[in-house]
């Protein structure tokens, strides 16, 4: 096949979601020649997310218009290495993004900072409960970077997003109304917290009466007119109830479109090519230096793009797959435990309770943003005494209302009819009078949970699919059972007529059908040496110094918190290191 060879650029960025856009904007100021390659379509607030067409649940929420098309590329899934993995033909459990903005377009906007202990999970568990409490198959490890090092970059990203929230710990001082477990922050949230709905208020009252500390969820959902550090004006959230699975039509939910792209357009040294699917990262004969990337356009024509610096900023799963396809880094071998690429794949363990109240309580679920609600952090890892509980990790518990859409957001009691006039009657009876308590839990990494290339199935370009080997482990099932108890305790105080549980039970297996979260993590994890990680603390490949890998693929394990905060703060941290250290002296920033 003929390959079109392009003139070299200084920096090529693979994937143009949150991390690609942040890196492009941070490096644009250097004047270097930057090219971003995005496999999906060009998308912008206007016309792609224009009101009212975007508020079409069937098109976007059910038919998944903004997401990766599994007919072209998907993953294969199995529970254990003894099983035969099959291709995932309709995404359900997680929804990888596609197109400009990536998953940053259709997220809900929960924007967390980790606590100090989250980044030192292995040390914390060892110190508090002893190394023997860590199961033999659990490959828990610390981040190689501290909260203090990342703090300025969390602040910067919060400002980029016009983040709404209530500080709980301002420079070490506890602030009433915020999360008392929060790590110290130098600055309050840029904009005031989102309004609380009745569900959040009711939850807060009950949690408080039990001695817990409720606080409004930090939201990348702007609540006041805000101009961010890039000079971009954000909109103000109007609680339309169409965040997750949708693009934001009024520029208030932070996305690359609403926070970065208007400012990036001012730089003539930056360009973006959409519908450009990168097939592999090319290296020189030594295998230690990247020379650029090979990509294929919408017509199927191959292109070679030489570059001095390669930024791998695709979605977590694609980062792992591209490294494997490029032969960069040693692939993980579950039998021997050797190798690193594909190691420490993790997910998120969620549970929920539906609370049916009856006519006296009106929750008006339709007036919501993706992040309206109240949480408690009292049972997150490190915040309570876990001696003798038999699990590592923890969860947030909260009452979030993200909308009252007609197809997916009308929970009914299990005994209700599924269709017909009985179903309609039941909807009428419960729609306004039902709320949900959710728990979002951490997932630890295990030797037997990993990603590699599938030996059988290929994508539309003839390249092997990524294979996911993953199932729930006893530690997480125990954890979620504990959280169910706590959530039910709060629900009892709230006084619901009827409570139905959606928590997993011991012996349950990973079910790829119902949506759980798009928080897939690991596979190219960061660490303090090349034996336990793919990238160093600056997200620089140990093997190829002019390659940086950004995103949730660098998480050593998954936290209870949603990942975007760490994803974007570490991207800004890496950009800073590239600008201030790497460009001055291209080479490894950490000696192996």
């Amino acid at each position, binding site marked *: 096949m003929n390959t079109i060879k392009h003139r070299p650029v200084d920096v090529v960025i693979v994937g143009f979601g949150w991390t690609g856009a942040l890196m492009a904007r941070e490096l644009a100021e250097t004047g270097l020649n930057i090219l971003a390659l995005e496999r999906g379509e060009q998308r912008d607030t206007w016309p792609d997310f224009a*009101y009212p067409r975007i508020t079409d649940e069937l098109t976007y929420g059910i038919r998944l218009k903004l997401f990766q098309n599994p007919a072209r590329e998907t993953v294969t899934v199995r529970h254990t290495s003894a099983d035969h993995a099959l291709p995932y033909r309709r995404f359900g459990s997680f929804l990888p993004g596609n197109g400009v903005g990536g998953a940053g377009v259709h997220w809900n906007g929960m924007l967390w900072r980790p606590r100090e202990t989250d980044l030192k999970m292995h040390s914390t568990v060892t110190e508090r409960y002893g190394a023997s409490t860590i199961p033999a198959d659990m490959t828990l490890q610390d981040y190689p970077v501290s909260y203090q090092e990342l703090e300025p970059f969390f602040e910067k990203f919060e400002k980029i997003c016009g983040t709404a929230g209530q500080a709980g710990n301002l420079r070490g001082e506890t602030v009433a109304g915020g999360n008392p477990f929060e790590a110290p922050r130098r600055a309050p949230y840029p904009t005031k917290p989102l309004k609380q709905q009745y569900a959040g208020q009711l939850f807060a009252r009950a949690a408080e009466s039990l001695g817990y500390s409720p606080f409004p969820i930090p939201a990348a959902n702007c609540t006041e*007119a805000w101009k961010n550090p890039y000079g971009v*004006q954000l909109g103000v959230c109007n609680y339309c109830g169409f965040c997750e699975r949708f693009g934001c039509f009024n520029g208030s939910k932070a996305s690359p479109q609403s926070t970065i792209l208007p400012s990036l357009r001012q730089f003539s040294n930056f360009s973006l090519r959409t519908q450009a699917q990168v097939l592999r990262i090319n290296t020189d004969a030594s295998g230690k230096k990247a020379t650029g990337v090979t990509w294929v356009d919408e017509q199927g024509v191959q292109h070679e793009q030489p570059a001095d610096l390669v930024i791998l900023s695709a979605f977590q799963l694609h980062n792992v797959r591209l490294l494997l396809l490029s032969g960069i880094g040693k692939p993980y071998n579950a039998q021997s435990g050797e190798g690193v690429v594909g190691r420490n794949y993790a997910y998120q363990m969620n549970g929920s309770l539906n609370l049916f109240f009856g006519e006296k309580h009106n929750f008006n679920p339709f007036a919501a943003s993706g992040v309206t609600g109240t949480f408690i952090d009292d049972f997150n890892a490190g915040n309570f005494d876990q001696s003798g509980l038999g699990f590592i990790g923890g969860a947030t518990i909260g009452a979030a209302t993200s909308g009252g859409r007609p197809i997916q957001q009308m929970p009914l009691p299990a005994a209700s009819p599924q269709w017909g006039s009985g179903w309609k009657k039941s909807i009428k009876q419960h729609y306004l009078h039902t709320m949900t308590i959710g728990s979002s839990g951490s997932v630890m990494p295990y030797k037997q949970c990993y990603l590699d290339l599938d030996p059988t199935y290929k994508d539309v370009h003839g390249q092997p699919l990524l294979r996911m080997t993953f199932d729930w482990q006893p530690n997480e099932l125990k954890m979620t059972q504990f959280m169910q108890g706590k959530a039910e305790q709060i629900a009892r105080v709230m006084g619901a007529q009827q409570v139905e549980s959606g928590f997993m039970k011991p012996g349950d297996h990973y079910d790829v059908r119902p949506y759980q979260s798009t928080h897939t993590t690991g596979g190219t994890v960061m660490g303090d040496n090349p034996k336990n990680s793919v990238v160093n603390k600056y997200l620089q490949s140990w093997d190829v110094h002019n390659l940086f890998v950004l995103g949730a693929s660098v998480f050593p394990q998954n936290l209870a918190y949603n990942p975007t905060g760490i994803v974007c703060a570490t991207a800004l941290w890496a950009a800073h290191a590239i600008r201030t250290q790497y460009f001055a002296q291209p080479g490894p920033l950490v000696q192996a």
Partner: protein
Amino acid sequence: MNIRQYGLCVLLAVASNSIAAVPERSISPGHYLALAADCAACHTAEKGTPFAGGLKMDTPIGAIYSTNITPDAQTGIGQYSYQDFARALREGKARNGHYLYPAMPYTAFSKFDDQQLHDLYTYFTQEVPAVRQENRKSDIPWPLNIRWPLWVWNMMFHDDERYLNDPLKSAEWNRGAWLVMAPGHCGSCHTPRGIAMQEKGLDHNDSAYLSGGTINGWHAPDLRGNNVRGLGSWTQQDIINFLKTGQNDRTMAFGSMADVVQQSTQHLTPADLSAIAVFLKSLPPGKFSSSPASEDYAEAQYPGAALYQDNCAACHRSDGRGYTHTFPALASNPALLGDDPSSLVSMILHGGRAAVTERALTGMRMPGFGWRLTDEQVAELSNYVRNSWGNQASEVTAEQVKKLRKGE
């Protein structure tokens, strides 16, 4: 610059602990005048080369196309002497002697003095790159395309005189008046036009001057001192911010004004913007003849209320106040309250976009709603907006909407 060179800069900056100084951009006086006069707006086709002409402009008798004013000898103004150039700008006559259509605002540019025209001439002949692009003939049919009768038009409506300084007014006021009347040619859009397409007033001595005009389905609002329909309630700083960034705390530029701010007014000096504000704020209110509704519609039972809630309130809010610098307020917004509702109706039908300027680079968009609202609904909605939250304006009819939808 490549990575190695940039790396060297980083090392040097770290060593000297300083950030490299960025030189101030300075431009020639002629370049500045060309920006102030927004020559590029008309003399550049959509996605065309700057000043090479070819932009289509509709007139009641057929479309005309702007001309190439780059210094190309064959197709541009390369053979123009200074005298030729000055005659074109002041008298509306091309080098070959034919009359220019008064879409070229020579009635405004005659207020340039010799020094200013020399500066402009130098810019267009020495700084602008020559582009070979043939001028396009107008679509005006014979015999209307015969140009000599324009001589009569000029006799009636054009006096070729320089700006006359008013010694009773401050220097700042005089500078502002000259900027608005001469390079700014604000009256081209903002002054109503008479039967022969002439502007009904060329300076502040005429009460029709800048009292609002309509072009291609958009109404350029009254810039005089009326509190409701004009700039009476605006401060000087409101005007300065609007022209510098395309927005202020109250509102945003839309329609072709967004282009004017982007290409022209954002580049003016703070002193000149301030002078413009001083002059505009000195204009007394004009005359009105409308009969606004007697009640305030901002109640649920009025026609249009439900349409407003469904289509508009998500951003502009149910109290019509919007959000500052994000979604313009509809309450007390002079651009929506003129006797001529074209702008409001066109905005509902087609949507709009904010100016992208150095200090406001977001460029927010409003989607069009013409595809889902009938003429009757647009009229109801317009009446609701024009008569709610203290707004008072005349009745909009479905017939008016129908015409604007058709582009009449």
